[in-house]
């Protein structure tokens, strides 16, 4: 087993009488990209804040970079780079001024040199005097990442770093993250994008402050044990019927296709196959996607309810 960068047990945080994070156990190994997934308000941000010493846990213990998160938060902060969900550098400072400020906060030696280097890496040397507020979402994100890397941290905590960033910039961002881990940096990243989740070495899915599943993407899929059948060209009425079939737990529309998922493969295959053949619709079994798996997890957490109707799920899928 390789060296653990983050190892926490029973991490708990309450705001008032609401338990936001409830007995979280987590282990992240050096050089990994660890994906942190879960619905909005599931406690991802709170967990990250506890790891970097912004919040004091109400219960639990753990070590981050070999230091105690309860007593050595100040020292942990020196070796952690934290990128917040919202752009949280100064829009009324220029790019170079923001970087210089960040470097001074961390007490980086040779500030001017480090900042020049970072600007070169970013490809922003020519626009160094531009105000950060005038940058697009993708550039702001790059700037924020550069600022959190100035002090050469050993651990990067990224809280939904790619929200509101275009696909091209997202892809480049992830290339960059992979390069960083090659260099030995450990990354904990929370995200809502499943393509990003697939790029992580390990995933943790939390819901209502509790860790539900943990492992590699494949392990997570195996754990959920979901089967998916894709049916092509079904009309709205047919989709309704498909969703109501025995064994179908989820029905999500993707363009002209509908993805039907269920945990009992045999029962679902039987009922869907018969109906599709009868209606002369093309169908095939595919591997369940992480997205299907997570929606399944979210649904089973909420329990069987009106959410399970096909139309609601189709709406939710489109809404995203």
């Amino acid at each position, binding site marked *: 087993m390789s060296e653990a960068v983050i190892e926490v047990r029973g991490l708990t945080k309450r705001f008032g009488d609401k338990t936001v994070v409830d007995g979280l156990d987590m282990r992240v190994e050096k050089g990994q990209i660890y994906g942190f997934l879960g619905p909005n308000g599931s406690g991802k941000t709170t967990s990250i804040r506890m790891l970097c010493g*912004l919040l004091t846990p109400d219960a639990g213990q753990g070590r981050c970079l070999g230091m105690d998160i309860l007593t050595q938060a*100040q020292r942990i*902060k020196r070796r952690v780079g934290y990128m*917040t969900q919202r*752009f*949280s550098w*100064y829009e009324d400072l220029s790019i170079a001024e923001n970087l210089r400020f*960040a470097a001074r*906060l961390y*007490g980086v030696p040779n500030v001017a040199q480090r900042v020049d280097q970072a600007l070169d890496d970013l490809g922003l040397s020519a626009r160094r005097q531009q105000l950060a507020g005038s940058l697009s979402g993708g550039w702001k994100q790059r700037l924020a990442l550069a600022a959190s890397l100035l002090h050469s941290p050993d651990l990067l905590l990224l809280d939904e770093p790619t929200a509101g960033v275009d696909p091209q910039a997202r892809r480049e961002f992830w290339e960059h993250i992979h390069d960083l881990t090659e260099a030995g940096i450990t990354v904990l990243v929370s995200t809502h994008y499943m393509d990003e989740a697939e790029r992580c070495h390990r995933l943790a899915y939390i819901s209502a402050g509790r860790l539900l599943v943990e492992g590699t993407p494949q392990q997570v899929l195996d754990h959920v044990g979901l089967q998916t059948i894709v049916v092509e060209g079904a009309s709205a009425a047919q989709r309704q019927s498909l969703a109501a079939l025995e064994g179908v737990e989820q029905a999500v529309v993707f363009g002209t296709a509908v993805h039907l998922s269920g945990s009992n493969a045999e029962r679902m295959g039987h009922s869907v196959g018969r109906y599709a053949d009868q209606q002369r619709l093309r169908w095939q079994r595919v591997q369940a996607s992480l997205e299907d798996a997570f929606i399944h997890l979210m649904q089973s957490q909420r329990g069987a309810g009106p959410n399970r109707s096909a139309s609601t799920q189709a709406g939710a899928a489109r809404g995203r």
Partner: protein
Amino acid sequence: MVYKEFIQMRRDRLTFAMMVGIPLLQLTLFGYAINTDPRQLPTAALISDDSPFARRFLAALQTSDYFQLGDRLDNAAQADRVLALGQAQFVVQIPSGFERELLRGERPQLLILADATDPSATGSALAALAELPNRLLAEQMRGPLAAYAPQAPPFDLVIQRRYNPEGLTEHNIVPGLMGVILTMTMIMMTAVAVTRERERGTMENLLATPVRPLEVMLGKILPYVGVAYVQVTLVVLAAMWLFAVPVRGSLALLYAAVGIFVLANLAVGVFFSTLARNQLQAMQMTFFFFLPSLLLSGFMFPFRGMPNWAQAIGELLPLTHFLRIVRGIMLKGNQAAEIFAHLPPLLVFTALALALGVLRFRRTLD
């Protein structure tokens, strides 16, 4: 649209409270607290001629309702001191042998020393005083003495308006304005600046760095100390060149006192920033603090004209004490020893506000 606006108004509890609270505050302050005709002003007496006349005169002062006789003083140095400290608004000085000279028709002088820093505080009392000799004599000079009853009073009532002999209101207003400007800008600037960091999420970023919360707070407020000194310098220069307000005391002493006062206001600002959820709320809180400061500190209206409860509130406000200090230094030429007498309440306020600000500032992180 209107309906939506009302819904939002109701959601923002603080704004709603302010919208109701500010008019109520104004009504209370303007309606009950303010009185431009102050009575019962503390008056000390330096009596060297303990004659029936002197006693009659003091009694007449007392009954005029404008003067509240207090301490008997022993010498002129004490008289200077009570005026310099602002303990007494007036000192009545009856020289020795006053009655004897009066009866001889030698027109003795009866001296009234007034702390005229704020002309509006002493104005009506002095006007009442001018009426006094005639009334007094009319009842005194009866019977066998009626022959002496003169057209003009047989003594000279000399009124010495100290510190502001010409009764120029700007001499009172301009130094006071320094405190008002500092209160307004310091509280608002820090409250808004700190709230802005929180609102924009940059505070979270700062606190995730190795910088300590106290350092963040100090770093946020220190620049404003510089701003404060620029403002003070501007007011002092304007006072001297534009308004010809004298600066009788030491500027170094003034700048030192400004330091404490600024700290008090910055601490209030930080405290407000921990309560406010957005910049608008921070502004409203500033205003809620500023309004009583303006009205109850003795800046706009004479402090001694207010009812006791209003004076009690005024005594809690840092501006009240700073006004006494700044007027003391600029107009009265107060020295360090006299200024120290005004410091304890200001220091207590500063310490409390700082402690509260720091505690709340730390707590809001969690």
